[in-house]
């Protein structure tokens, strides 16, 4: 803990947490608890890099830190030289669809592709570049044609669905590189990002007959995992968060088709037909357990994802089962988290701490008075308030923390898919809909 923390990481952490999102870098400095879970996922990643596959459902209540956990696993994967792609599901993005929503999810995944050197996304071009560079090197050594080398390296892909066209697109990228044709290169990247919506356009630009569309979501991911391997990486990790949006789909048909796809992915991964590929799906307990609308409503999934009955009886957790339940943070863990945040804020220098331990305790006490249990169950706003307080103290060295703690206002975290209703300030006073804030069925 005595190491200095780089300013870049410190800023990234503080800024992200203040706006309520998970930081992309520097996670290791604030990770608290969950050591067993992290170990289990670490083993999964090792397995992926050795040619296996992984499938995990990360289940946690709203605000329990699922997304954070997924980010932690992601940074571990990056360190182990995997390529990661991640995306959140939404009403407009899902796994199976017929009007483009699956394609949009795929595009989002590709846009967020990250590598160790480019952890903030947009790494697709670099991955392709790397592959092409390697192919060139090989071609130079053998004195052969680069295109032939490319096709040789991608031969294994051709066996899979869509593999042939995939290889052709990479080839087109190489040609664009050769001919200094920026447009061809960017078209190839566009194709890989599933941004082509019609086959005619793809045919015209790249001379391929297929595009990545709703139907080829999973197949395209399998191809990508083999491709990144050929590009010199250890494998591909796919993070899909906010799976609860499938649960919220109002069409039973749509929901069932999506669950079918999840079953297919699960089977492939756990049977060993997928290689160098891992899936992490983040969702709420309802998403998994609801017998009428959740994954458990699909019988085949229920049997595969059922809890380990021995572990249940023995009162322990089986960390090897596909469904991993994350418990909420405990108050003690939250305390440690705040200590870490204080440490990060001071760039790792203990002499620059803005508040003493007492302040932390007092702060947490105040939070519990204000919003009750929610302060550690859904710590998002607690963390935000804490960082706000630190910011004020930093900018006003003369102020005392004791003055500030009492006046902290913490909002209750109330999620919803419906847009907030914006009204003018004057009318805002008369509205009494807030009396429904705590409504429970």
């Amino acid at each position, binding site marked *: 803990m005595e190491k200095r923390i780089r300013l870049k990481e410190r800023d990234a952490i503080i800024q992200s947490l203040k706006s309520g999102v998970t930081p992309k870098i520097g996670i290791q400095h604030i990770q608290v608890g969950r050591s067993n879970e992290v170990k289990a996922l670490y083993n999964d990643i090792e397995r992926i890099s050795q040619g296996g596959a992984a499938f995990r459902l990360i289940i946690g209540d709203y605000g329990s830190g699922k997304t954070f956990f997924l980010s932690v696993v992601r940074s571990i994967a990056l360190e182990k030289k995997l390529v990661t792609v991640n995306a959140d599901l939404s*009403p407009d993005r899902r796994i199976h669809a017929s009007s483009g929503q699956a394609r949009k999810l795929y595009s989002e995944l590709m846009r967020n592709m990250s590598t160790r050197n480019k952890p903030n996304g947009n790494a697709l071009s670099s991955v392709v570049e790397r592959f092409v560079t390697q192919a060139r090197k090989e071609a130079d050594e053998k004195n052969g044609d680069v295109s032939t080398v490319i096709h040789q390296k991608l031969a294994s892909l051709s066996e899979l669905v869509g593999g042939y066209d995939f290889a052709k697109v990479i080839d087109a990228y190489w040609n664009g590189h050769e001919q200094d044709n920026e447009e061809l290169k960017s078209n190839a990247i566009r194709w890989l990002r599933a941004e082509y919506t019609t086959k005619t356009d793809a045919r015209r630009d790249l001379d391929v007959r297929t595009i990545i569309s709703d139907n080829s979501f999973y197949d395209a991911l399998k191809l990508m995992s083999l491709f990144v391997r050929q590009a010199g990486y250890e494998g591909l990790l796919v993070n899909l968060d906010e799976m*609860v949006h499938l649960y*919220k789909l109002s069409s039973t048909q749509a929901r069932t088709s999506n669950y079918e796809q999840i079953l297919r992915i699960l089977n492939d991964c756990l049977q060993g037909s997928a290689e160098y590929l891992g899936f992490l799906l983040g969702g709420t307990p309802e998403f998994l357990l609801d017998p009428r609308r959740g994954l458990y409503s699909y019988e085949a999934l229920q049997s595969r994802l059922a809890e380990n009955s021995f572990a249940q009886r023995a009162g322990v957790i089986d960390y090897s089962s596909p469904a991993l339940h994350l418990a909420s943070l405990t108050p003690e863990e939250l305390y440690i988290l705040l200590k870490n945040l204080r440490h990060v804020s001071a760039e790792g220098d203990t002499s620059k701490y803005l508040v003493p331990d007492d302040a932390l305790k007092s702060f947490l006490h105040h939070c519990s008075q204000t919003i009750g249990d929610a302060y550690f169950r859904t710590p998002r706003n607690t963390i935000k308030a804490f960082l706000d307080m630190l910011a004020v103290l930093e900018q006003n060295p003369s102020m005392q923390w004791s003055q500030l703690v009492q006046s902290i206002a913490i909002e209750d975290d*109330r*999620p*919803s898919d*419906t847009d907030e*209703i914006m009204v003018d300030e004057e009318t805002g006073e008369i509205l009494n809909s807030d009396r429904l804030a705590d409504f429970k069925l």
Partner: protein
Amino acid sequence: MIEEYQRLDKRVQKWLFNQGWPDLREIQKRAIAPILSGDRDVLISASTAAGKTEAFFLPACSAIAEEENGFGILYVSPLKALINDQYRRLESLSEMLDMQVTPWHGDSLQSKKKKARNNPSGILLITPESLESLLVREPGWVKQSFTSLKYIVIDEFHAFIGTERGQQLLSLLTRLEHITGRISNPIPRVALSATLGELEKVPLSLRPNKSLPCETITGSQHQSTIKVQVKGYLEPIDITGDEKRTSAEQQICQEIFSLCRGDSHLVFANSRSRTESIAAQLSDLCEQQVVPNEFFPHHGSLAKELREDLEARLQKETLPTTAICTMTLELGIDIGKVSSVIQVTAPHSVSSLRQRLGRSGRRNLPSILRMLIAENELSDKSNIVDGLRLELVQSLAMIRLLIVNNWFEPADTEQMHLSTFLHQILSVIAQWGSARADQLYSLLCEQGSFKEISIQHFKQLLSHMGKVQLIQQLNSGELVLGIEGERLTNSYTFYAVFKTPEEFRIVAGSKTLGTLPVDSLILKDQHIIFGGRRWKVTNIDDEKKVIYVTSTKGGKPPKFNGSGMSIHDKVRQEMLSIYRTGDYRIEVGNQKIDFVDNLGRQLFQEGAYLFEEANLEKQPVYQSGKHSYIFSWMGDKVVNTLTVLLIRSGFVCSNFAGVIEVQNSNVDDIKNCLIAITKDDLPDETELAGTLSLQQKLIEKYDEYLPEDLLTECYGQKAFNSSATKQWIIACLV
């Protein structure tokens, strides 16, 4: 004229010139400025064919002429046929402006819809149900396509006020403003309407949260001539064996046959079975006389093709056509005007009568209304309702109110509309995926149209919806659809909030007599009239929707049943005034116009005579033989209240045409009973509604999903009025 004209887009001006109109009409000129301002709602109220649609479209199209992306005008109409008409009428104007016009409803062309989907712009013509479907199924596309919406225009607004569909429409408009982020900067709404009572209250029905001011434009009184005639017919007591006398219906058909052949007319018969029967008789007459058949039925249960064929025939105006119809032809489909309108029974409201009258009267010709009313021939056994010729007098009263006072029923705006509210809750959740309780309340009640629903009601409703699996709550507090809610929203029938009324089967012994709609008040031991006979209700089976009856004595039942909930106080008061003065004639200048024929006049005089004989003016409660009759001369809400109060106190009574018949009772008993009830507080509407069986209160589409308390409260508001009843008792009985 020049000034306003100049403010229109140049191409619109050119189009006007091409039309060859000498001038813009009054309301068209006055509408230009307020609509172009874009900062207020506009209400245009004028009689049919006064040029309302142009009054809106000329300035509105000018305003959006330069817009390219997204729809500029949203036009909402109650009927698909109306939309098709409007589309035709806008063709030339839109061509001049190079503006896209898209009709969007269940039957419109897919190619047009697809074109609009890919490239939304111009004017969208849609029904409330199709709009609902878009919001639920394609919210993303809606958000994009309606960002530049400048105007929302609602045609035939009078058809929406106070109805379930109207509530749905207002709610949809609020949701549209919400999804496009226009709640704090609302989209101006323009309402086009023909007949409206109490005009000052209407802007509140257009925008309940008053976020924009409203300017009202009324057409100057339409100076058209109206010709009215009421003809009476006698229904003979017994026609078997006497070949010279024919039933009233046969006489009426003969009349229609002679009046209507050779030109186009509308005959309103108020019930499907009556429609069929009259149409059948008329076709037979045509066949007998070897002339082509010009008489066709039109009602909701008829096959779509038959209805459309008839509508097309009327629209073409090449062949003389007489349609025998129910309410379905009341709304303003542009089938062209007919020569005259005939009513075969008393109409159920004055606004309905006005709307129907408006269908007649071709260019420069007067509107013609004929009412052919039949009353029973009298004998010593006759019921007092028959004796007073109530159906005839009700018709006269309505005509007077219409012509002399220019009055029509004001819309009932205090209803909770719980069935539609429940529907909207499900719809909003389906649209977004999840929503919080406070958001739902804010959107639907505070910003939206459901102003009568308190937080208490709301919580009660949500809890019940959770219980019946319509909604569920996630751990995070959000509400999502439950398994039943999903089933409802996935069905293609979800988007409409109205339904055809359910009917109860009437069973005597082991024989089914027929069916009766549920909107009439029926309690155990009550007497009902069916098939011209009197029956006593022995049991009501909620589950199977059956009413068991036995034949009963109690005097011959009156011909005119008229039960329900639609007659307003004012109509009955007018009837009372006609009886009192003994004169129904209409004063015009110094003259009194008599619009009733000889037999009708005779029937009226019989009724007026009986009124005086029985001294009904001084005696609201009248005894005749063993039974008593209460004449409140108040609307159906008060009549229903009195009926239920008496039943609760142990009397056996029923009501026909606003008259309450109490079995085996005398005047004092009744008076004392009612006065005693008034001494303590009268039970309120909810308590009264509690006496009815559950099934009877299930009127609207989603009523079955409401918690019983709320349903009872809602029904109580529709059917009863305790305070008015108390006032009447104090005024008339004490």
